[in-house]
């Protein structure tokens, strides 16, 4: 990048490894400035990457998967399952006689597994005390800033079928 540097009386190696103590301060400051600007470039590239991912985002399609039978779990009970892949752990909670809700079990803060607390009627993350609403998965308290992804359920006969994942 020779166009960045104007002609100097000293060769570059002499400037970068100065023998004069007074000049050393300049060298270290210039190098630190260079490092900071490169970090700034890194941040910009990161933002560009997010922009590219946003522009070329394609909504994924999810399979349909039977996850439980209607009377299988009692009111206040839970069932753990994986959806849409074997690595995506989810939690199904029966909140009333006729109502079931399901969310991803991965906390949106640092991916710890959340559990259902029947006493406080909410989903709790044991790692950093992040609490989520059982009604819509929104954050009630703690470090997580995003709600839990919701698994969309459909009732087909006496079976509960997972059909979609909603990230809001």
């Amino acid at each position, binding site marked *: 990048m020779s166009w960045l540097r104007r002609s100097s009386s000293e060769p570059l190696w002499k400037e970068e490894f100065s023998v004069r103590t007074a000049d050393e301060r300049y060298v270290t400051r210039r190098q*630190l400035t260079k490092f900071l600007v490169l970090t*700034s470039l890194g*941040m910009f590239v990161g*933002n560009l990457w997010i922009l590219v991912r946003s522009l070329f*985002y394609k909504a994924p399609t999810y399979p349909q998967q039977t996850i439980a039978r209607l009377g299988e779990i009692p009111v206040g009970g839970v069932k753990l399952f994986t959806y849409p892949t074997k690595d995506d752990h989810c939690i199904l909670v029966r909140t009333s006689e006729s109502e079931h809700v399901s969310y991803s079990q991965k906390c949106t803060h640092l991916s710890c597994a959340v559990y259902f607390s029947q006493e406080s009627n909410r989903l709790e993350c044991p790692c950093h005390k992040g609490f989520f609403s059982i009604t819509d998965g929104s954050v009630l308290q703690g470090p997580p800033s*995003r709600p839990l992804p919701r698994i969309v359920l459909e009732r087909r006969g006496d079976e509960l079928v997972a059909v979609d994942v909603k990230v809001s």
Partner: protein
Amino acid sequence: MPENLELPPKTRGLTAIAGAMSLIAVLLIVQIWLLSAALEAFLGGKRSSALPAAIFSGLMFLVCFGLYLFVDRVDLDVRNSSSER
């Protein structure tokens, strides 16, 4: 009577470089925050904020780069003036 209070070129150069570096540091902190906010929004399914975040991040990088060129120029000027003496 006050004498010539003008600072020597080296001291002036160091002050200018320190000021430019402080500005770069502030811009960098804003850029880090912008990146984390854009990532958080992207993961939360809000993709509309990616474009303004990228534009502002690019602008901040350009300002940082301009400041770097300024630091480089000041540095060179001071070196040349001290070697001329």
